[in-house]
């Protein structure tokens, strides 16, 4: 049973991560792949404030979200000047640089990671409580993102992604929207970080490397970039699939590389067969008395 709970908790965490990542990269078209570092900022902040200041898990998780949102300015400010590939390279630099700092300062536990994070829930129902909380947060996050991207705000985000220069020349303040999108998206990753820290009670720097960026990107791409439910499907699939393979009882020499290749393989297959992902973007809510044009199919 604990095995099932641990998967459910991971699914919840990764639904939050993939959905918030999709808001940034899919809906707003801001090509950053530094999302894991905001996950890390949330996890470390939550863990550290709980250890040193005795903050309650909920407060510590919120603190993690706030710190991640504040640090997101380091992505939204460069996005004022650079976009596309250049923004992506900036984001890699930011992610690796900050990770180097985490690995080398003392108070984060350096290379060895941060351990002995206190858990607010103990006893036989620990797994159950964490799964319920994790899935509830995931549902709330998906609902909130859907609310953001479907209304008139979503229409503005879409317009900005389609053509930023035209968007500016219509009187829209693209910078303000970018700051909000990065803050919301990264803040949500911070919440996922808090959840992670309190469940595992241990955070280590390796899990926030580029490989984690690749995993989140795969979830978004396979699920469907720019669609609200896509990243949910992507996260569930990519958490479940490696677990399912273990039941095949393959020899470990094949198993390990197979799991590693799975993500890469899926991205390549989807690029060719279904570039829009499993679920196509649905676009904003129709205006009163109007309908949408045909949005299906690759763009």
């Amino acid at each position: 049973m604990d095995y099932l709970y641990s998967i459910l908790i991971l699914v919840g965490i990764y639904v939050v991560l993939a959905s918030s990542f999709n808001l940034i990269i899919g809906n707003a078209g801001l090509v950053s792949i530094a999302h894991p570092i905001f996950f890390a900022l949330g996890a470390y902040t939550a863990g550290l404030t709980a250890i040193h200041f005795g903050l309650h898990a909920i407060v510590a998780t919120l603190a993690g979200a706030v710190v991640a949102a504040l640090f997101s300015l380091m992505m939204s400010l460069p996005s004022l000047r650079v976009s596309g590939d250049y923004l992506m390279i900036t984001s890699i630099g930011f992610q690796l640089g900050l990770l180097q700092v985490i690995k080398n300062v003392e108070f984060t536990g350096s290379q060895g990671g941060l351990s002995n994070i206190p858990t607010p829930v103990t006893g036989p129902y620990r797994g159950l409580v964490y799964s319920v909380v994790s899935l509830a947060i995931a549902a709330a996050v998906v609902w909130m993102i859907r609310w953001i991207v479907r209304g008139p705000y979503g229409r503005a985000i879409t317009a900005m992604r389609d053509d930023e220069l035209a968007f500016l020349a219509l009187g829209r303040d693209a910078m303000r929207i970018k700051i909000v999108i990065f803050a919301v998206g990264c803040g949500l990753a911070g919440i996922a970080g808090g959840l992670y820290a309190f469940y595992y009670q241990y955070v280590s720097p390796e899990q926030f490397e580029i490989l984690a960026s690749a995993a989140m990107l795969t979830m978004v791409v396979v699920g469907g970039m720019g669609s609200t439910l896509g990243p949910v499907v992507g996260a569930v699939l990519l958490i479940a699939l490696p677990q399912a393979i273990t039941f095949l009882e393959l020899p470990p020499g094949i198993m390990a590389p197979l799991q590693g290749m799975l993500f890469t393989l899926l991205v390549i297959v989807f690029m060719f067969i279904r570039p829009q992902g499993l679920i196509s973007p649905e676009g904003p809510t129709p205006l009163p008395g109007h309908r949408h044009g045909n949005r299906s199919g690759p763009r």
Partner: protein
Amino acid sequence: MNAVLTLDGLCKSFGGIVVADHITLELERGQILGLIGPNGAGKTSLFNLISGVVPPDAGDIRLNGVSILARPPYQRARMGIARTWQQMRLFRTMTVLENMVVAPREYAAESILNLVFKPGAVRRADEIACEQAMRILERMHLSQCADSLVTDIPFGQQKLVGLARALMNDGPCLLLDEPMAGVEGQAYDTMKAVVRQEAAAGRAVCVVEHNISFIKDLCTSAVFMSFGAILEQGSVADLLASKSLAELYFGP
């Protein structure tokens, strides 16, 4: 002094290429000013300077007598400088109507705080923008494609949507970058009629255009540019009769 837009000694060069060489120009209410000249003369660059996409090296830009040089592009648009683009730059994953509804000078939903705390006001603003957009589309005989994706309609109509979207900004100044390139038939007549109506309603209009008959039909005056400088300025008839213009356009 009833100039809506004043350009005062505007200079800009990219490396050795001069795109604006001491441009001094006034645009008045109700005027339709034609901006003509060979490719690379700096006509579109002038629009980019006015709308704030590119900062000038020297000179000043005033809207109703107030310098707007320090304003970023989005604020200039909110002050009432609307523009279209030669390449249209429509929002390609959105419908015609959606393209227009994000284009009013003030967009209540731009602030996420409004969205949370004043959802009623946001919804009302959306409805008003929607009605305004439908009125403009009707004027341009486009209401039947309001719900089509912009990429699904013919080129001439996309060009009209570019103008329609700019008209959502009801400010005093309208800059049109080659509105006629690739447009013919009914769309051509519609474009001409709408531009004329906008000027009659008191807007200051400036048109960059290669189509001389469009300039002749519509413009009250014209400016001839070459290598970033204004060579001649006056009534369209005078300009077209000028020898130096014909030489520059068609060769000696």
